[in-house]
């Protein structure tokens, strides 16, 4: 495991998204294309979606998040087509008052996506 630890009096370098007063947690998750699939080396994953249904199903998941946690914003981008190994296939950003709800909502969103959103992959 590589380690890097910094205690600093300067602003932390990574940019923080604009948040409203009272929002204390920003959770960002990147899903990255691995270089192997089922033990075989791959160069990319080709993602296919039923786009209209995927947008609708993501909307239902966002609705469920809004009902369950006091989340200020959810952003999600999923790659379609050919995504090379080591590039991001998924990015999620959730802003909430506290880390617990931000992490829980992020985990819920990804779990629900993997169960309901019609996106498929073909390793290349």
């Amino acid at each position, binding site marked *: 495991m590589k380690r890097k630890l910094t205690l600093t009096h300067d602003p932390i370098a990574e940019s923080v998204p604009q948040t409203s007063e009272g929002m204390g947690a920003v959770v960002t998750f990147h899903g990255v294309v691995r270089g192997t699939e089922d033990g075989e080396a791959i160069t990319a994953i080709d993602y296919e979606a039923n786009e209209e249904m995927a947008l609708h199903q993501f909307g239902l998941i966002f609705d469920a998040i809004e009902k369950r946690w006091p989340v200020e914003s959810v952003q999600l981008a999923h790659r379609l087509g050919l995504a090379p190994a080591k590039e991001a296939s998924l990015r999620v950003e959730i802003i909430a008052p506290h880390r617990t709800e931000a992490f829980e909502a992020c985990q819920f969103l990804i779990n629900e996506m*993997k169960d309901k959103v019609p996106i498929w992959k073909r390793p290349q």
Partner: protein
Amino acid sequence: MKVVVKFWSYFRDYTGCEETTIEMNDGTTLADLITSVHEQFPKLAGTEKYTLKAVGVDYQDDDYVLNDGDEVSLFPPVQGG
């Protein structure tokens, strides 16, 4: 009535087409339609246990009664992320 059936992911490899239009009697359920689809595309045999079914953009159960012009999607388990 006519129903359009769309195939996604590797189900298209089994059917050799992206979609087909099937004529059914009024009152046909999703389960009835899938039986007809499997008769037309025998290579789909064995996929029944894990096939996901949607009408339009919403998932539906086998007992869903279809309407003329419905667009049905059949696909394997999803794999986003």
